């Protein structure tokens, strides 16, 4: 199964924008999630929950709390999908 890494980044960007109330255009893969205006622990957990629902994956807590950017979160999702496909 091929995994569309760019698509994952794009979808996570859209999720972050929706959950944090910012525009997609204001985000790039390296955007520091905790630095986004309005970001707090609850909203960031909602991002994680939405990501898990979107790809039907269960991310490990230590991975989730270790990510700092959209790109980091995309890597965690990609790894989870690879495990799922194995």
């Amino acid at each position, binding site marked *: 199964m091929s995994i569309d890494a760019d698509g994952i980044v794009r979808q996570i960007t859209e999720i972050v924008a929706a959950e944090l109330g910012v525009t997609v255009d204001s985000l790039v893969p390296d955007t520091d999630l905790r630095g986004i205006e309005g970001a707090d622990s*609850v909203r960031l*957990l*909602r991002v*994680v*929950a939405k990501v*898990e*629902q979107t790809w*039907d994956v*269960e991310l490990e807590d230590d991975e989730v709390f270790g990510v700092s950017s959209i790109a980091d979160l995309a890597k965690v999702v990609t790894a989870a999908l690879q495990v799922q496909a194995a």
Partner: protein
Amino acid sequence: MTTVEPPPTTAPELPWAVLEDYRCFGCSPHNPHGIALQFTDHPEGIATTFRLGRSYESYPGVVHGGLLGVVVDETMGNLIVVRTGQVAFTVSMRLRYLAPVSVGAEYICVARLGQGADGPLTSASAEILDADGATVVTATATYRNVSFGTARDRIALSAPEATRLGQALTTTAADASPDQSDQSDQPDQPDQSDQPARQDHPTAKEPQ
């Protein structure tokens, strides 16, 4: 002026209702210590609206997270029961707590079926949303579908109760899947995954 009536709310018929004194902590109206959840049909599965008081408190003003496990487990488990007519035993469950759930506030839990409703294991997901529609808890779980004949040995029922519940589950199965309606009251199929119910949490109700 034309007024728009809200769509009628329908409730799934839980087979346990034929047991006059079932005491399920989650959904029985007969357990004074329980939370007496009531379910309604939902476009994506079934739902329950609930409000938990201080008896279920953790930190002051915050509902204990374990109780939320009961809520999601009940909602997912009963969804599987009404969709399959089989008893669903929880195999594993995982919750993600996104925000504190407040004592006394109203929330809704919505459960959806996942994969495998036709096999021995069924996955389901649920979320709890606050009055503004914000998700506060997400959950996923896996259940083992067990025919009533198998479950019968693990739950305490008198013979008349077993007969009534067996018939109710057969009706549930027929309503859920007319093509398979004659399977639920068959003698047990060999259950390869059947192990002693060491840690199974019986979503099946345990009348006392």
